[in-house]
């Protein structure tokens, strides 16, 4: 079997990105939405690593993806804390129930 080329990686990354966006748009559970965000970030990460291997981007791509992994963890921590805070006040993490702020 021949080694995978750049397009194969980009295709998988694109699929991850679209899955993530769909997940963000359709999930009603806040944690589900955050999972969608993780998928999008990992799609981008896969892009970076693939570009690091196949284009002149080189090591930069791998370094960026490492930073993004750390950042995704930090963001998830804050987002989960906020979701927990929301749960404490509303007894649900259903995004559709967050509808008290309206004009």
């Amino acid at each position, binding site marked *: 079997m021949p080694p995978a080329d750049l397009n194969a990686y980009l295709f998988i*990354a694109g699929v991850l*990105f679209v899955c*993530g*966006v769909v997940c*963000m748009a359709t999930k009603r559970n*806040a944690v589900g*939405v*955050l999972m*969608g*965000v993780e998928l*999008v*970030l990992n*799609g*981008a*990460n896969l*892009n*970076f690593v*693939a*570009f690091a291997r196949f*284009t*002149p*981007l080189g090591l*930069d*791509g791998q*370094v*960026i993806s490492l*930073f*993004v992994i750390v*950042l995704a963890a*930090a*963001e998830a921590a*804050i*987002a989960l*804390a*906020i*979701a927990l*805070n*929301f749960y*404490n*006040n*509303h007894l649900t993490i259903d*995004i559709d129930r*967050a509808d*008290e*702020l309206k*004009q």
Partner: protein
Amino acid sequence: MNFAELIERLTENTQNSLPLFSPELCLVVTIVALLFVRLLGIDRHLPGSIVAIIGTVAGLALAALQWRDFHADDTVTSVPLFTGLLVYDPFTVFFRVFLLLFLLFVEYLTMISGIPDQEDAPDFYVLLLGSTLGMSLMVSANHLLMVFLAVEMTSVPSYAMVGFLKGRRLSSEASLKYVVYGAGAAGVMLYGISLLAGLLGTAHLPAMGAALVEFGRQHSSFGDPAVRTLAFGILMVLVGVAFKLSAFPFHFWCPDAFEGAPAEVGGFLSVASKGAAFALLVRFCLALVGKTAGDSPLSHLYLNVGVGLGVMAAVTTTFGNLAAYTQKNIKRLMAYSTIAHAGYMLMAVAAMMVILNAPAGDGTLVTARTASAVSCIQGLLYYLVVYFFMNLSVFAIVALVRNQTYSEEIADYAGLVKQSPLLAVCLLVSMFSLVGMPPMGGFVGKFMVFYGVLEAAQLHPVMWVVFVVGLLNTAFSLFYYLRVLRNVFISPLPEGARPVDVPLASDGGRYILFLTLPVLVLGIFVDPISGVARDVATWLFRG
């Protein structure tokens, strides 16, 4: 190059960069100090707000010294910091001073208004300073990695700040909405960055400009898939920036977050976060164009970006102004006003892109083009400086009134002039400035921005539409500000209204007066600040 040489170069680079990075380091030290203050229980004797203010003043002093250095020696253009991840130039220093000064004002406001309480103060200031640190990196970002990191570093503490009042239903809902939209926009932005970095083979902004010229020679027509991918990448990065700006289709978080958050946080987000996002947008746009007017093979693509930004600006302004009409909560009204103002300022960036990239066939000289682009950025900077004072003044008045009446409904502002003439007059000045009436500063800012748009309109017909929509919006916006002012000045004081007592001799009164006076001064004495803005803008294009 062997390992020892590499280490030596890195050490040398870091040693050269650290002094120029000192205002940010000052913020970092303050953040660590605040954490220790909390840990060791010193905050019972030394309030967190004092520690934060000392750190901010020190950072501001260092930034001001750097500013003086630039004035002493104007041959300096730009210095890359940390192997080119950040860039140090007058634009960076201008925004550092802007952000740190604003941070100082917000910290003082939180001290007067008592949000946060003694217990939570160190945590709150850690978030506030961390967010400002992110903004400071945003304005000096010179690498796509730093662009993303800085945007996230700004956003993540702001999510927590919006939800800082833990027990409140609305506050927790606001922060949940903010974090969900924010995380989504950041994800999309990162994907766009990955596409740009992969296509061009570099993530370093100046190198990207050069790579784009090369790229444009090989693929120039829009039908080429590579060019489409490039356009997609640019679009996705702009989505991330537009979210920070709360520009039209990405503004949903803004009214909810502002209504749920304390007024102090709303004021901070509306000015500082917007200023930093505009600096980032200008840097990104200039990295694409490569600082030269009209000679890039991809000019048609950039021209479309500029026109797209112009249309987005026009829609954003119109939407913000129309939606503000029906609001009953003053913070929500100010959120829509913030959206509208983001639109006005976005017009300046759009005009710059159009001027730099319109086809050069009509014989206008490149130097004339650059001069017009400089005047656009000059207008943007002036607008931001005025916006600093007028918007923070309104939010500060909202915070002070809330502390006494426990209400943020516009109806409860009825008859405010009889209770506190000072607040009422300051609100009048700031709101007339937000409308753009002479002789307030807002008029000068709007005038400069619209002048830039008018120049762009000579080069592209769509900018005429943007120009007319902008002018019409200025007239529209008068009415909803007037509705608040009518309540304050004409409506009778209702029976049993809670007293609002903010005399001139109190901290709050002096603070509001101190914030409102510059709004008038900036409208009458235009030259000092507009001269600085012009210098900064000229330096930006010279580099």
